[in-house]
């Protein structure tokens, strides 16, 4: 085991997480309690689902800025399908998830088939999907969902918040797929050298389309959970969540140029951000001050990681 392997990005990050947890625990008695941890997990789920699939997107060398808009669009569509169209709620949720996945599929088509850079394509659909959500809703909100729907966002199963089970399932599946399957290796190959991947006969276009569709699906799931958690539907839901998700992924060691990144890293990034947010607010720091710290941590971590990997990053 070489020194460089010991100081790989995930190890540095894990150390940071442990230090942060210990330091924050000394500030407040309520920080490392089971109740608080589970509750933080609940709050982390929406951005977590998006960030896990965003890891795949960024590993292919792409980016998806439209996830926040897809979240908002799905939320609005669930509300409209249920209240205005009159569909039963499970069908409305299903239709919302299909619509969100389709929105991601459209991203994939624009990026893979028409060769539009992902940043621009999803910048366009960010405006488009949020615009459709605003246009459809006309700034009206939908409330009064049946009681059972709130189990998803506010309830518990076996003492653990419902959505946390979903997050765990997605995280484990994603970690296995990205780390141990042909699919995962294809993802890395596309991100490391797209031309070489194409010449090796890998289905580059379909890999991308599938990943952006999955990103749309994850954002749609996050939308359904969001509506259930806050009991209402509004068109501005999820604004800016794309930057939170990307921050977690990049903090987790994924290279924005593609070819590098792990699910474990992303999860550590998510935990560090959530721990800082919650721990500092328990210690009496205003939440906006925490945002400053997260920005600084992001820059410093990547800078630190670059010091150990100077040659590999160039």
């Amino acid at each position: 085991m070489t020194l460089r392997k010991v100081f790989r990005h995930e190890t540095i990050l894990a150390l940071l997480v442990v230090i942060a947890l210990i330091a924050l625990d000394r500030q407040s008695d309520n920080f490392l309690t089971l109740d608080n941890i589970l509750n933080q997990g609940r709050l982390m789920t929406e951005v977590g689902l998006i960030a896990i699939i965003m890891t795949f997107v960024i590993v292919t060398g792409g980016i998806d800025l439209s996830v926040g808009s897809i979240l908002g669009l799905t939320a609005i569509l669930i509300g409209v399908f249920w209240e205005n169209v009159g569909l039963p709620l499970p069908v409305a949720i299903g239709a919302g998830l299909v619509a969100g996945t389709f929105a991601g599929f459209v991203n994939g088509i624009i990026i893979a088939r028409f060769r539009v850079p992902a940043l621009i394509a999803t910048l366009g659909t960010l405006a488009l999907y949020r615009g459709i959500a605003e246009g459809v809703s006309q700034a009206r909100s939908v409330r009064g969902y049946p009681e059972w729907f709130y189990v998803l966002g506010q309830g518990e199963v076996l003492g653990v918040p419902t959505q946390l089970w979903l997050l765990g399932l997605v995280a484990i599946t994603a970690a296995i797929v990205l780390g141990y399957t042909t699919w995962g290796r294809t993802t890395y190959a596309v991100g490391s050298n797209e031309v070489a991947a194409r010449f090796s006969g890998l289905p580059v276009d379909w890999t991308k389309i599938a990943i952006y569709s999955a990103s749309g699906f994850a954002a749609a799931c996050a939308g359904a959970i969001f509506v259930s958690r806050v009991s209402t539907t509004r068109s501005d839901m999820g604004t800016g969540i794309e930057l939170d998700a990307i921050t977690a992924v990049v903090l987790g060691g994924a290279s924005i140029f593609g070819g590098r990144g792990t699910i474990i890293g992303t999860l550590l990034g998510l935990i560090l951000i959530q721990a800082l947010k919650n721990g500092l607010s328990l210690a009496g720091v205003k939440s906006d001050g925490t945002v400053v710290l997260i920005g600084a941590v992001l820059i410093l971590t990547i800078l630190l990681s670059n010091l150990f990997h100077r040659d590999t990053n160039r």
Partner: protein
Amino acid sequence: MSDENASRFRARRSAPARFLSTYGQEIIIAAVILLLFVLVSSINPRFLGANNLNTIISGNAYIAVAAIGMSMIIITGNIDVSVGALIGVLATISGTLAVAGYPVWFAWTAPILIGAAINGIVGALVAYGRLPSIVVTLGMLSILRGGLVTVTGGAWINDLPPDFHFAQQRLIGIPAPIWVMVILTVLAFLWMRHTAFGRSLYAIGGNAEAARASGIPVERRIVQVFMIHGAFAGLATLLFATQLRIIQSTVPPNLELTIITASVIGGVSILGGTGTVIGSTLAAILFSTIGAAMIFLNISPYWLRAVIGVLILVTVLVDMQRRTREIRKAKR
């Protein structure tokens, strides 16, 4: 990207073809703006009133000015997602200085210098720290936005001195923001096309290694272009902060994305190396024209963003088609 550059290179053969391929995007946007004006004014003639025209063009002038700096950043192959937050911070600084009794000229120019200084740090992290610009500016976005709300506590600035409102002044009947926007756009355009410094930005974005090999100090240029971009953010602040009687501690949501969008629709390739600032200024005018047209045509403004989204996608798809055609032509 090499294909793209090759196509631009070969297009130099005939002057009209070269003009079209260099300024195609700008011509298209100008045509769309004219078309919108003709269309909407034929339905509602009041659309062409002098007041309305001034409002349409001056309302988004600060976006156009910020997009000039953003275009330079994108042309070098970088990006800045923190500029919206930066404008918010600079506006608050400017307003605070004015209320504290400093001379107005000082409150106007301080944001320009502070913007350049802050983005100088960003540029240094990108150039010498070897960090991707999207990562640094993502971090900077959090720092600036969080810092602003922490310091101000979300309070608005009132009681601004009456002579602070630069954006409300007029010269020969034309609002000051329009003058600033037009002059800065023309100067920046000429500077980027006809000076060694300006040309080097295109060279860095086209191929940083080749630029380095031909003796351009790439790192220093990156820091400088980020500082210039910061100064333009300060100039945008001068227009943004002085247009209303109050300064809020927030900026319009997704302001950074609107500014990036103006650059991209204006024809600046996100891959770097191409584009002009005339296109980005026209694109900023196009946004406010669409917004105003929708009001005059009685379309719910809630659809505005959907229209802009479609516009981005159509522009980019048409642009990709044109490039593919040019590459094919060049290969033949």
